[in-house]
């Protein structure tokens, strides 16, 4: 694999709200290498989007507050720059791009797609208006939008959800970002469009030698694409490893639960799907012990009295897990 592109160490972010401190991102560490595709997987509300927006420094502060950690991009700590700094601004869109969960509302309704695309290109490249427009057309073509020239003059409301998500992808590739963060890029779309958009994103990433972080709650979806997976639960990572290791040999009961709730394509007879029982906890006033404890079929006394189990190496290839009773021993 290539060089380390992004390295996040012990990142912590909380929202300070009237009802208390929401520990949305609680001490997470991960990394992405050049041309690598990784996935961050977890149930709704576990902090996936917030963690990625923290990396981009797009969280409103207040109520959000970064409580620690570092975000090393090509060795430089982005957090040192501050959210409103010019340095951070030049990284957004040109080095790291983010595609959001909500294609329907993520484009400005009163400007044409071309206006919005051109603006981004002109922020990051020294080109004339005309050249920027042409680059915009090229970007739309690269995401396989037919009639790119006329589409440039369209307003977002004249496009379908899938088309808008393609526009957002075009925005992230228009300035040759090295890293694309795709936050559930397809959840809002219908199933056929989902597959098309995902395939498009993957082929673009391969072609442009870009690294990709896919954020999703659907473990089944990413096993086809991601090289490594991080499993997130209640603001923390609970397991990480290569996709291969993680699906054949899940160590954390939560990962195992996620896997058994995914329909398997192979296998002679259709296995019964077992959703994980119970609900994820509120991120306010989390207990000192493992947050998964109330839903965990493997829980022991140690889990209830011990502190939160730290991430530790449990297998080859840096397979890590935060659990006292990892499945299969250790």
């Amino acid at each position, binding site marked *: 694999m290539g060089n380390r592109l992004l390295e996040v160490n012990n990142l912590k972010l909380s929202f300070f709200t009237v009802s208390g401190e929401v520990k949305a991102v609680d001490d997470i560490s991960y990394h992405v290498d050049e041309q690598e595709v990784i996935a961050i997987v977890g149930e709704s509300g576990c902090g996936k989007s917030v963690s990625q927006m923290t990396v981009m420094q797009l969280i409103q502060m207040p109520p959000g507050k970064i409580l620690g950690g570092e975000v090393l991009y090509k060795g430089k700590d982005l957090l040192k720059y501050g959210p*409103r700094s010019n340095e951070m601004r030049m990284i957004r*869109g040109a080095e790291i791009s983010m595609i*959001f969960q909500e294609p329907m509302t993520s484009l400005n309704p009163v400007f044409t797609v071309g206006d919005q695309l051109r*603006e*981004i290109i002109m*922020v990051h490249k020294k080109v004339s208006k005309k050249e920027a427009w042409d680059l915009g057309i090229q970007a739309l073509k690269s995401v396989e939008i037919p009639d790119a020239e006329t589409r440039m003059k369209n307003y977002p409301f004249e496009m379908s959800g899938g088309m808008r998500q393609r526009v957002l992808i075009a925005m992230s590739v228009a300035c040759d970002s090295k890293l694309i963060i795709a936050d559930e890029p397809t959840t809002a779309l219908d199933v056929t469009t989902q597959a098309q958009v995902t395939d498009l994103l993957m082929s673009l990433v391969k072609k442009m030698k870009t690294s990709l972080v896919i954020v999703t709650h659907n473990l089944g979806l990413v096993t086809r694409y991601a090289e490594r997976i991080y499993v997130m639960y209640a603001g923390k990572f609970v397991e990480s490893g290569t996709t291969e290791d993680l699906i054949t040999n899940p160590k954390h009961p939560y990962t195992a639960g996620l896997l058994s709730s995914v329909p398997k394509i192979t296998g002679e007879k259709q296995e019964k799907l077992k959703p994980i029982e119970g609900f994820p906890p509120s991120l306010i006033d989390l207990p000192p012990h493992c947050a998964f404890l109330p839903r965990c079929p493997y829980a022991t006394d140690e889990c209830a009295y011990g502190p939160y189990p730290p991430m530790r190496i449990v297998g080859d290839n840096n397979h890590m897990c935060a659990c006292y009773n990892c499945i299969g021993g250790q």
Partner: protein
Amino acid sequence: MGQYILKRILISIIVVFLVTVFVFALIHMLPGDPARLYLGFEASEADVQEMRVKMNLDKPWHVQYYLWMNDVFHGDLGDSLLYRRPNLDIFKERIPRTVSIGIPALLISVPIALIFGIICAIKRGKWIDNLLTFFITLGMGTPVFWVSILAIYIFAMWLKLLPIQGYVSPADNFNQYLYKATLPVLCMATHMIAGVARNTRTYMLETLNQDYIRTHRAFGISERKITAKYALKNALIPVVTVLGFQVRVIIGGSLLIEQVFNIPGLGTLLVLAVNNRDYILIQNCVLMIASFTVLVSLIVDILYGYIDPRIRLSRR
């Protein structure tokens, strides 16, 4: 867009119609006999009766209404009972005076209000937002006549900078106009700033919280450009309707301000007409004001449709 405009025009016509019916009914419920008032208390009962017939007051209401509308459609706004001359002439004389106070007030208040609103939204929660919001709230809660009286007290009676009251047309003597109109214009402007500023602040805050603003940020667009271009256009669309509303505020405000500053405009005219039961003047004056207000709303609605591509481009 075509159908959108057509619909607005239709609604406007209906509104004006309803206003005329309403005013007509209201006036005819007022106590006092216009014929008697017209002729004076010494006039004989026979003369009054004759006058009633001449004024069509003996006919049923719907006939009276029809006769009024018939006149209006023939360009005849009737004669004032009070002034004993054509209403149209009176209007021609008075409208420029009200406009000469209202338009400068509008021109002063709108940019200030927009800037206040935007500053508040960008600096939300900071001291400057709190300060401006305090004044805006104060402005919204303070009646315009009270502001006017306070202004007269401070600037005219105490500092002796400006006259207490009076009016000179800018066409007659521009310097005198400036001298006399400054206080009423400023009072009117103060009265108008609060509403627009508060709405701008609200819309701007709402816009800055939208997902697409996050997208602009996520792609490195500068904060300045986001507020001044991408957010502002979204926020201004609803503000345009508020501007239309300001025309109504001017008319309402002129009723009071013209009284306080003794300006012989439409506001004073309407008050005089009501006090003297000059029903022909009242109903035509209200008709004129209503038509004008509705016309402004119509223009604003069309403008709104034009700024918002979602309406402009909808084929139906």
